């Protein structure tokens, strides 16, 4: 096939640079304004906006469910709601937040919008596929949402067999079908990114000139491709199990429920890095821009992204230490889990070193980035506690785990999402938001988050199991504290929704590069025109070409 790759077809008659004929074209937001032009959009920027609006909606639903959970836990005896209501609420929270918010969050919005801009391309490689992936996502997500909200599902987002296959009387089947469908959307997005990053880079945009954001999205996309099909199979088997009693996960027929956990975590542990890596990409853009300094250790950070995406496939068994897997497997998975510390440390220390001797502006995106670094470090290191076998035997399935993964998912992904949203908001919308309100919200969220989740580390070590609708009274104080923190956190989430929407109509017009940041996305107008660049962008000499350069840049870019 490569045989024919270099031969241009007879029908190829168009001129090579259509840009030359483009005059002042309206930006992508104003190019067309009909509903049809949005719902049939193939422009990656418009599809990103479609995703942004939909995942914000899912975030609100998931957050409301979290509010219900925290409300129930204010009292220990379950007086506020029945156990069933509580179980359904935490299932909605988990299913919606994991499958419909966290996994698509940064890649499908920022990745979709920015990857072509950052590499100097006109669009993703497969624009129609991109739109398809949004429709697939919405179809699956709405299907599941209807079943978890109207019917209710009480299995938790993990759907462990045989509870989900043979015992739960709730609407598990439609929920499973919806989640399976959403998986295809992930695969299509990942496929599009991989192909785009490989083939669509502007001339001169070599791999080591790519922003870290693109590197982390490349790594994320590999996980989408390599892990998602396995959860699809696991869910198909679960659906068949529930509908037809296949038996492979059902002990009543000699099946093995632990096998489902293996298949589930083969995807779901790497899925943690689907959520984390794009956030790391966002932070790697924000920190140099607001420190006015070249990213420290660029190559190490780039390699660490690929390293994380690979190592993550070897550690899934650390979710199953007490679940009946063999001791050998537990020892192997535990030891390999410690290897995750290496690339993670690379990232954190390099961000810190980037700030060193910079010239810092503590604007909203930078506040989120600094909060991210702190919370990610705590979340990551408590992950090592959990990977330690003897500690895991005590805190597995307690609030310690809940606190740990919220430090990664909320302290990490959500903070990076909000930081990125503020950083690129001028680029997305062409408007500036209110900086004072932005800073206040960032601080509120940081404070609210810690008040909510730090007590849960203590609760977990004291031995309070997770997914408990009722609990012993001595845990009430810490639970009330946690619920109070959740109120602060909620306020912190509401502010940006208000002032960002307000800025759409009343915000100051944004210049092309409001932060004086480097990267091709800032070389075009805000918002960008339909085909991204009016004239082909000039690829910079080095990435992160900020005024302050550490001497190491010579080592790194010989």
């Amino acid at each position, binding site marked *: 096939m490569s045989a024919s790759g270099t031969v241009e077809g007879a029908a190829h008659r168009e001129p090579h640079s259509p840009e030359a004929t483009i005059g002042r074209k309206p930006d992508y937001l104003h190019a067309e304004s009909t509903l049809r032009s949005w719902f049939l959009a193939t422009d990656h920027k418009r599809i990103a906006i479609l995703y942004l609006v939909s995942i914000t909606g899912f975030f609100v639903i998931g957050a409301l469910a979290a509010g219900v959970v925290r409300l129930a836990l204010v009292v220990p005896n379950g007086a506020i709601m029945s156990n069933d209501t509580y179980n359904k609420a935490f299932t909605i929270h988990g299913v919606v937040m994991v499958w419909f918010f966290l996994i698509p969050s940064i890649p499908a919005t920022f990745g979709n919008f920015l990857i072509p801009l950052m590499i100097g391309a006109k669009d993703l490689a497969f624009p129609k596929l991109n739109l398809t992936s949004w429709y697939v996502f919405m179809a699956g997500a709405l299907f599941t949402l209807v079943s978890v909200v109207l019917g209710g599902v009480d299995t938790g987002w993990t759907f462990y067999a045989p509870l989900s296959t043979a015992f739960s009387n709730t609407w598990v089947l439609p929920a499973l079908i919806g989640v399976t469908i959403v998986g295809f959307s992930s695969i299509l997005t990942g496929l599009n990114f991989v192909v785009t990053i490989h083939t669509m880079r502007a001339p001169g945009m070599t791999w080591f000139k790519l922003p870290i954001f693109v590197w982390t999205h490349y790594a994320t996309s590999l996980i989408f491709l390599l892990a998602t099909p396995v959860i699809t199979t696991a869910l198909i088997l679960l659906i068949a199990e529930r509908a037809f009693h296949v038996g492979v996960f059902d002990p009543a027929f000699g099946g093995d429920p632990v096998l489902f956990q293996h298949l589930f975590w083969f995807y779901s542990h790497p899925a943690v890095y689907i959520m984390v890596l794009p956030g790391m990409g966002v932070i790697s853009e924000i920190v140099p821009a607001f420190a006015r300094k070249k990213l420290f250790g660029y190559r190490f950070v780039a390699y660490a992204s690929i390293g994380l995406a690979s190592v993550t496939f070897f550690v899934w068994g650390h979710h199953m230490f007490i679940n009946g897997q063999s001791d050998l497997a537990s020892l192997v998975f535990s030891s390999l889990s410690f*290897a995750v510390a290496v690339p993670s440390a690379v990232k954190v220390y390099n961000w810190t070193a980037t700030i060193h001797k910079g010239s810092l502006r503590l604007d909203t995106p930078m506040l989120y980035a600094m909060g991210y670094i702190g919370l990610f470090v705590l979340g990551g290191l408590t992950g090592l506690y959990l990977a*330690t076998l003897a500690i895991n035997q005590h805190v597995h399935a307690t609030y310690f785990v809940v606190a740990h993964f919220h430090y990664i998912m909320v302290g990490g992904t959500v903070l990076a999402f909000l930081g990125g949203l503020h950083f690129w908001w001028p680029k997305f919308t062409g408007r500036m938001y209110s900086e004072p309100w932005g800073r206040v919200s960032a601080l509120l969220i940081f404070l609210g988050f810690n008040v909510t989740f730090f007590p849960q580390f203590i609760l977990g070590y004291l031995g309070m199991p997770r997914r408990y609708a009722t609990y012993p009274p001595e845990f009430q104080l810490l639970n009330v504290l946690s619920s109070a923190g959740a109120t602060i956190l909620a306020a912190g989430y509401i502010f940006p929704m208000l002032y960002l929407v307000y800025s759409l109509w009343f915000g100051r017009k944004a210049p092309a590069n409001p932060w004086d940041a480097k990267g091709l996305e800032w070389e075009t107008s805000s918002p960008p025109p339909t085909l991204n660049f009016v004239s082909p962008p000039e690829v910079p000499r080095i990435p992160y070409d900020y005024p302050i350069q550490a001497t190491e840049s010579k080592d790194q870019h010989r």
Partner: protein
Amino acid sequence: MTPDHAAIQFWPVAASVKAVETDELILAFTVLTLALTVPVFIAITWFALRYREGSEADRSPSGIRSNLIEISWMLIPFLLTLIFFAWGAQLFVQSRNAPPDAMVVEAVGRQWMWKFQHATGQSEINDLHLPIGQPIKMRIISQDVIHALYLPAVRMQVAALPDRYTEMWFKADKVGTFHLYCSEYCGTDHSVMGGKVTFMNPGDYQDWLVHAGAQQGKVAAGRVLYQAYGCAGCHEPGSPVGAPGFAGLYGSKVQLADGRTVTADDGWLRDKILNPNGDKLAGGGKQVMPSFAGRIPEDDLGRIIDFIKAYPGTGQSAEATR
């Protein structure tokens, strides 16, 4: 019902050597965590203040050889944390290999209760009495979904799988009453699937086995079963279904719809649970109770009847059966 816990606590009670060792491990790990993170936090804060835009800081290149520094901060934290892998793994391996003289206690999980059976045959529901100073090996299995037996006081939990036995062993060294939980989410009443574990001196344990254990345990166990099989949902006073209550039922005369009168004794109660449609009661109430034939094992049935026997008469406190 309240185990020996303070109203507010900040560190869990450690009732075994493994628990103390786990605490030491996590404390040491926390020291390492602080050593690795506090410098980062201080550095970020210090840099943020020192190098703010417009400040008069020295921003000349530091000339640090970056490859060396990169490799050092990749490897040093990793090697330090590996110590904790080894430490944790060693404790884990110990906790997975029970000594040969361990006393075997069976644990069976089902939605939503635990049933324990002692080596000498006595059994308990949700609560567990064990001697200290003696290795105990729990042999764990489930009758339905996956559960997990969790004893925070000894820092151990192990899944109860439906298809095969799992094991957990420990040697308690502190007398007292502590929580016992199900820690693998198992459906509606997951959070009430638990009770308390009481560690006793060996002599007290023998006493308990001989006297209290078998007897006093029965009624309390019956109460748990009364909840678990859903009897309480209809028969507890004030329930919407309004099924007949049990206050003063045992030993009383019951009017039947066909005019007969029977005495509510053990045998009749048993028949009525297994075949509710027989012996229809006088009073014209609608018969809605499903048959429990084949659904309640014989030993559980006995405990439920014991509970109904002891059900307090109207006016008495329900506490009597707790």
